[in-house]
């Protein structure tokens, strides 16, 4: 069988453009399309629709390989830390997640560990009211590790199922802020040995190639275990999540699809890839 069958190059080029347009990255797109070209030749696939199906399958596979069941928590509380650069949706997602866990009949506590930004604590308190979840807080400008300590002790003594920790937005290039996050993680480990059980990197779906560097450095300082991709109700495709899955082996756990409390969905790789390829 000849291995040099023709593949529809125009179709491949269209697919490559749509991958780049989705923010998957020019190099990642080229590698994926090269692999698709090889496979297309070997399987004698010529038409564009079939190539697109193959591509859909491959992208889904990249994402599915990172999906793993969330590890069972030895003893409550399960501690979930929300981290990420400024403005991505950490506080909003904390509120949505609190409601989501409550809907599963879990008892939830939240920690307002962003003691820096103007009205950050007040913002989380509104989400606490909306989700019916109590917030452990301190005064503005207080020590984030100290309020985290209080929240962990409270969650333990009250036997809460889940503790959600909202942290301040910070750029991964700011060493002192990343060190603060590392310190918060170590504080958590001292009080609850397996915690934090989940460290969710909250990323804006409009983020470009910088998202990879964010994921790398946040994983170094905070031990990221998964991604929440927000603002997918916009027109951005969030393709950076595929580059992150491929290179850093991180799963997407949830997606944010709006500003209301119910606008959160567990990640569905098929739906995500369908929307990406259009």
């Amino acid at each position, binding site marked *: 069988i000849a291995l040099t069958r023709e593949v529809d190059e125009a179709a491949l080029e269209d697919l490559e*453009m749509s991958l*780049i*347009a*989705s*923010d998957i*990255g*020019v*190099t990642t797109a080229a590698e994926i399309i090269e692999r698709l070209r090889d496979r297309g030749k070997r399987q004698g696939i010529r038409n564009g629709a079939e190539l697109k199906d193959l591509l859909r399958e491959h992208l889904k596979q990249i994402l599915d390989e990172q999906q793993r069941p969330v590890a069972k928590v030895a003893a409550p509380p399960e501690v979930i830390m929300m981290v990420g*650069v*400024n*403005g*991505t*949706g950490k506080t909003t997602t904390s509120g949505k997640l609190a409601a989501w866990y409550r809907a599963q009949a879990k008892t939830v506590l939240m920690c307002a560990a962003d003691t820096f*930004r*103007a*009205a950050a604590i*007040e*913002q989380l*308190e*509104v*989400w606490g009211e909306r989700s019916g979840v109590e917030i452990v807080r301190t005064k503005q400008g207080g020590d984030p590790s100290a309020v985290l300590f209080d929240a962990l002790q409270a969650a333990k003594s009250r036997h809460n199922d889940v503790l959600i920790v909202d942290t301040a937005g910070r*750029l*991964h*290039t*700011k060493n002192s802020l990343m060190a603060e996050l590392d310190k918060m993680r170590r504080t958590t480990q001292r009080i609850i040995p397996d915690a934090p059980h989940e460290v969710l990197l909250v990323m*804006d*779906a*409009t*983020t*470009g*190639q*910088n*998202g990879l*560097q*964010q994921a790398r450095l946040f994983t170094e300082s905070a031990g990221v275990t998964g991604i929440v991709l927000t*603002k997918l*109700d*916009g*027109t*951005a*495709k969030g393709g*950076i999540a595929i580059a992150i899955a491929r290179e850093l082996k991180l799963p997407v756990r949830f997606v944010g699809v709006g*500003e209301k409390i119910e606008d959160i969905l567990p990640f569905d790789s098929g739906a995500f890839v369908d929307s990406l390829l259009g």
Partner: protein
Amino acid sequence: NLSEKLQRAFKNLRGQGTMTEENIQEALREIRVALLEADVNLNVVKDLIDHIREKAIGQEVMTALSPTEQVIKIVHDELVTLLGKDTARFQFASRPPTVILMAGLQGSGKTTTSGKLAAWLQKGGHRPMLVSVDVYRPAAREQLRVVAQSIKANIYQGDTKGEPAGTPLVERLAKEARREAVITGCDTLIVDTAGRLHIDSDLMDEMAKLKALLSPQEILFVADAMTGQDAVRSAEEFHRRLALTGIVLTKMDGDARGGAALSIRHVTGQPVKFIGMGEKPDAFEPFHPDRIVGRILG
């Protein structure tokens, strides 16, 4: 880096010769990759490469180093031309108050930038008034109030009177703030708005209504420097609905290359007027095109 990649791409063009379509092909590919990795929009990159190719072909190559230097210079000049060579001016009203309307997607930095703009205007001897018409986001109006307090700027708080969050309330607050600015002798009014999607027709209508109500001298699109390919779509729609007068690129204190600046400038024709370089009110600078070009080219 790009220079090294171009050196390799030009290994057949050492010494003398002329740049032709063939011998610069590999170099153009490297430039394309560099621009895409810097988050410049795909279609903008296509246009840029065409212009660069046009300018390069026919150029005489003088020394072994010169093809790389020449092409880098062409690329650099092309990007600076696209961004607009000079630092853009801020538009004041002939009769106060000058109204500045902040616009943009969720989380881009509008509220923080409103405070920075007020601080910048104060330094320039102005008397700004701030108002938040973000009646939607939890504690948004409180956030601006705290920011205003920290820089001792006037802020119109207004009373929402338990009215439901919606455009009528937004319009009422904006009207009252403008009147208050006039009464208190504030010569500038900065209107902070809620983040919104360019595909949300009700909220985009609200922006259009705010514009009609306030007749702002400046409508600033506040965009996150780490925005990727989607930057053109949102910027284009905001520009179509509002006729933007300028762009603020925030979070430039990170390591995002900032290619979105090129994309947004290209699709709106409007200049980047300021950049945000941090979370504090003083982390705000007028934009210099050549600095971001260096950053985009890595």
